[in-house]
């Protein structure tokens, strides 16, 4: 370490800050409570983070493409309600593809508005947050949805079953993370997403179809939301109309925590997974330490700001903002 100056160390800490923080938290929690590192606890945390995580994977694409998606929470409520309702009407084998089709249609609508009509994504998805919530309430008539015959259906498989002793939600989350991670990191499409998010105009001038790329990021996001809705519905076999309410901002928090820049062009699927896991393990670790549940909100607050601050500081080369 002799070759490193103080500044190099600072830059290293700032760049890998999120991983370092993760490791420190894990060690701290493990020392505080032995239960924290037991397999069943770890698997429990990942399982309960899976729904948020699956949604965060999709939002990562949107954010790297330089846009926002605030509609994922209310869209997830929609998917959950729709699949539960259709389950009793047309059976699970048809209900699942039908729900995916409807959710993808909503994603396509947003993609059309943000990609092809170039509308501001924050406001479009804000409007869709409200509109989809209205749609969900209209669909359900404001009532809770429940599967009538819980004993005879195989629908519980996605949310509650295990394969090789691994909970299915974890498997789905992992498979989706690997597939989407490869899509983003190793394919021409992935490079285009970075290009569009990094510099919209330059990307256009180099012949990248910006509109289509942005459109696709919203399709991917909607696909992830539909998957999350499926996991949610299958886990609880019944749901309220607002099951995903507020999740849009928690998802965004996880994505930002993973280091994706809101300006677009930066971030990876792997780091988003880390962001999701940090949120999940902190919640779990604090509970195991006997803290009240609200402590995690305050810890999350501090962590997000510190993480982004370090990132910004590393880029500009100084800790404090130069604003007068």
């Amino acid at each position: 370490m002799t070759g490193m100056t103080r500044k190099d160390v600072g830059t290293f800490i700032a760049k890998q800050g999120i991983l370092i923080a993760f490791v420190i938290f894990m060690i701290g929690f493990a020392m505080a409570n032995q239960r924290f590192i037991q397999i069943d606890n770890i698997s429990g945390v990942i399982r309960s983070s899976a729904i948020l995580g699956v949604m965060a994977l999709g939002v990562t694409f949107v954010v790297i493409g330089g846009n926002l998606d605030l509609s994922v929470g209310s869209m997830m409520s929609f998917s959950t309600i729709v699949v539960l309702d259709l389950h009793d009407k047309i059976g699970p084998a048809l209900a699942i593809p039908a729900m995916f089709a409807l959710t993808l249609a909503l994603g396509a609508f947003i993609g059309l508005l943000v990609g092809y009509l170039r509308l501001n994504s924050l406001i479009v998805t804000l409007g869709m947050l409200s509109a989809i919530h209205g749609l969900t309430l209209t669909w359900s008539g404001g009532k809770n949805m429940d599967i009538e015959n819980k004993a005879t259906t195989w629908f519980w498989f996605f949310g509650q079953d295990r394969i090789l002793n691994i909970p299915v939600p974890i498997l789905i989350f992992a498979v989706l993370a690997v597939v989407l991670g490869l899509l983003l990191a190793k394919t021409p499409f992935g490079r285009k997403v970075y290009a569009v998010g990094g510099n919209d105009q330059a990307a256009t001038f180099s012949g990248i179809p910006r509109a289509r790329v942005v459109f696709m990021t919203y399709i991917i996001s909607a696909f992830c939301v539909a998957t999350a809705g499926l996991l949610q519905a299958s886990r609880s076999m019944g749901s309220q109309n607002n099951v995903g309410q507020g999740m849009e901002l928690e998802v965004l928090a996880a994505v930002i925590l993973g280091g994706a820049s809101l300006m677009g062009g930066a971030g990876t699927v792997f780091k988003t997974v880390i962001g999701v896991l940090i949120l999940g393990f902190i919640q779990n670790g604090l509970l195991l330490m006997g803290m009240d549940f609200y402590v995690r909100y305050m810890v999350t607050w501090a962590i997000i700001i510190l993480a982004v601050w370090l990132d910004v500081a590393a880029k500009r080369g100084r800790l404090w903002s130069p604003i007068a």
Partner: protein
Amino acid sequence: MTTLNSKDLVKRGAIWAFIAAELAFFSIAGQFLSGSDSNFLDPGNMLLLLKQSAPLGIIALGMTIIMINGNIDLSVGATFALAGVVLLDSLSWPFMEDLGDWAIPLAWMFALLTGMVLGAINGLIVWKTGVDAFIVTLAAMLGYRGLVFMYNGEQPTSNMNWTLVDFAEAQFLGVHTPTWFLLGTAVVLWLLMTRTVHGRNAYAIGDNREAAVNAGIRVGPHILWNFVLIGFLAALSAVVFFSESGSVNPNDGMLFELWAITAVVLGGTKLAGGYGSIISTLGGVIAIQLLRKGLGHIGADTQTVNLVIGLILIAVLILDRHLNRKGKEELKI
């Protein structure tokens, strides 16, 4: 900006034309569809409507300044709830109970101070760290909500103080107390934005931050004051609302930030900063409340309100895009 061209007039008049259209539609449609005999345009009904727009309106007015500044505040809902908790809880502190009715202004002060402190924390972080306001206030939304839960767990905080309720329900010159607060806030903020250096700086910073810095405007403290201001207004909104209801649920105010932003955008303020008006935001708030009440009046499910407002927001954006198509950032593909 001494002469307004026709395009500006269209833009500024749009929200009021929309409100007029809503009024006409709901009063005519109400004749046929409404179950009740009352007229939608009944003055009592309209006064009630203004009163109900006050809590959201006061926050949206503050959000306008933040957005003209080129920032955003997602933590106002949590600030609203925490200020409400402080207001009602402080009334039951032992030394406050000894004060009798004098405890009320003191409780208001505590609540407003809470809001200002929370706003100042956001503002300081934005200023000193240079992290985007969107992220800072997104995180604060979680953090401040945590503080709300810390107070009373998942239990509501209740305190029925009848002097307080009487005050909140009082009518002066026929207009309810919350409406006076809304109108007062609108006048003060309008003066602030159109008649003072602070207001001019707010537009300048939102329009081009670098140019503002070069022009010698101290951007950091300016942003800090605006966040203190919106914290104060979120708390004022809580004071107006919870004085009457007397009970705070720890989840109160959730998604308030998004409704406030919707109202501001309906009023024509630009997300990118540098453009917007307090009076138009007032129009946006009234338009939303009219829609809520109107749809109820003609017997539509209250659930459709969300759907309609969402679609209107998107429609406004498309219209705005067409009105503003002026070469500048257009790069059609």
